[in-house]
């Protein structure tokens, strides 16, 4: 009986929260999207919220569609597709050990999935992103690389290789523009990514972040020490 009461209380809480969110979504969409889009997106947002998914990207997508003058059905379809991606990302992260993935991470996962990475690749990259790398950022970079045409496997190798080499998160952010530069010089996205992965593996000082480079377990002193 107690369990039933608790379940009902939690369900009531969720229902009340959803009810409270409805006017918020509608208020933000009114006048910015075709009228028929408002209830449809509010429904999608309510469903997403009930599953613990971030709602803000859905609202943004609807606003984007409205601003671009897209037809109502196309806006609704885009919002639904994004909701599906967020749900898939959330599920992938949860089954990958991220029980309490925050909105940024779920959005990053959805972005990567939308760009063509698989669920397993998203899980793998999220797990590989130990500090100082943020999993959400890693997934967004990987998603952008995939969007640039780098095959998912090469994307995985490049990003993970850079992390294992102990390069900075700033270097991670530079990857898409470096791939673009390689493509501008005539390489395919895969070739550009492979070249960058090889360079990262052989870069001086490469090694796991905060760790000891392979083969140097016994220190020989700091060569830069005066």
């Amino acid at each position, binding site marked *: 009986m107690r369990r039933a009461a608790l379940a009902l209380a939690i369900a009531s809480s969720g229902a009340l929260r959803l009810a409270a969110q409805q006017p918020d979504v509608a208020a933000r969409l009114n006048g910015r999207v075709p009228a028929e889009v408002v209830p449809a997106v509010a429904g999608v947002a309510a469903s997403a919220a009930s599953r613990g998914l971030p709602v803000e990207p859905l609202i943004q997508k609807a606003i984007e569609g409205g601003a671009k003058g897209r037809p109502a059905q196309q806006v609704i379809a885009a919002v639904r597709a994004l909701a599906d991606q967020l749900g898939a990302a959330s599920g992938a992260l949860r089954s990958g050990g991220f029980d309490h993935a925050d909105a940024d991470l779920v959005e990053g996962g959805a972005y990567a999935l939308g760009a063509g990475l698989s669920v397993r690749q998203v899980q793998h990259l999220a797990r590989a992103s130990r500090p100082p790398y943020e999993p959400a950022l890693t997934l967004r*970079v990987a998603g952008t690389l995939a969007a*640039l045409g780098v095959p998912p496997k090469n994307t995985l190798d490049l990003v993970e290789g850079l992390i294992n080499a102990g390069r900075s998160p700033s270097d991670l952010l530079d990857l898409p*523009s470096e791939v673009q530069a390689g493509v501008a010089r005539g390489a395919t996205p895969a070739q550009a990514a492979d070249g960058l992965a090889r360079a990262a593996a052989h870069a001086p000082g490469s090694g796991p972040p905060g760790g000891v480079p392979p083969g140097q377990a016994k220190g020989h002193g700091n060569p830069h020490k005066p």
Partner: protein
Amino acid sequence: MTQAYHQLVKRLLDGELSLSDLPPELRAEGAEALRLLGAVDRTPVLLPLQLDARVMAEVRRRARSPVRRAWRRLVEPRDVELRLRVRPWVVWGGALAAAATVALLLAWPPASPGRIRPVRVAARDSVYVRFVLYAPGAKQVAVAGTFNQWDQNAARLVRLGADGIWTITLALPQGQHQYAFVVDGQRWVPDPAAPGIDDGFGRRNSVVAVTAHGARTL
């Protein structure tokens, strides 16, 4: 000045024990306590005969005041009998509603100027990002994206001379943003200098990552 007497001395003062019942080390203390008690002036206090009459006259005068009567009516406690006949499901329903309210209060996010993402990230440091587009035939160019709710009137670029180069510098919150240029209020154009991704509407958005170290065309 107060003095804490031993428990046995207190019983002596209460008449429960005699001085000889006390252990030798307490007898001096007991004798002193008895001496002080005996010195207390126990003469009965005689009140003047008119006192009762004066007090009662004052009480009657106050009781007659209409303001006081009204005030008393308002604040005096009264016995109110309330009879309710409730069915068990009503009790359970009330209990569940109360539980739901508590759960709601516990789960509700803290009040903030807003729950939308831009407000949250705006609390972080912003970074100035320069947008440039080469559009020689354009009469008007704007940039719209997730950072300005896709409002094509929020950030209009400025033409640099007659070369067709349009530019604007915006302070963007840290994070990843999608955007596009809007040429002449109609044509949505991705940034040719930035990676693009499918926008879900059959076109492409450009992507920029803003970090504390600057912006990358992510």
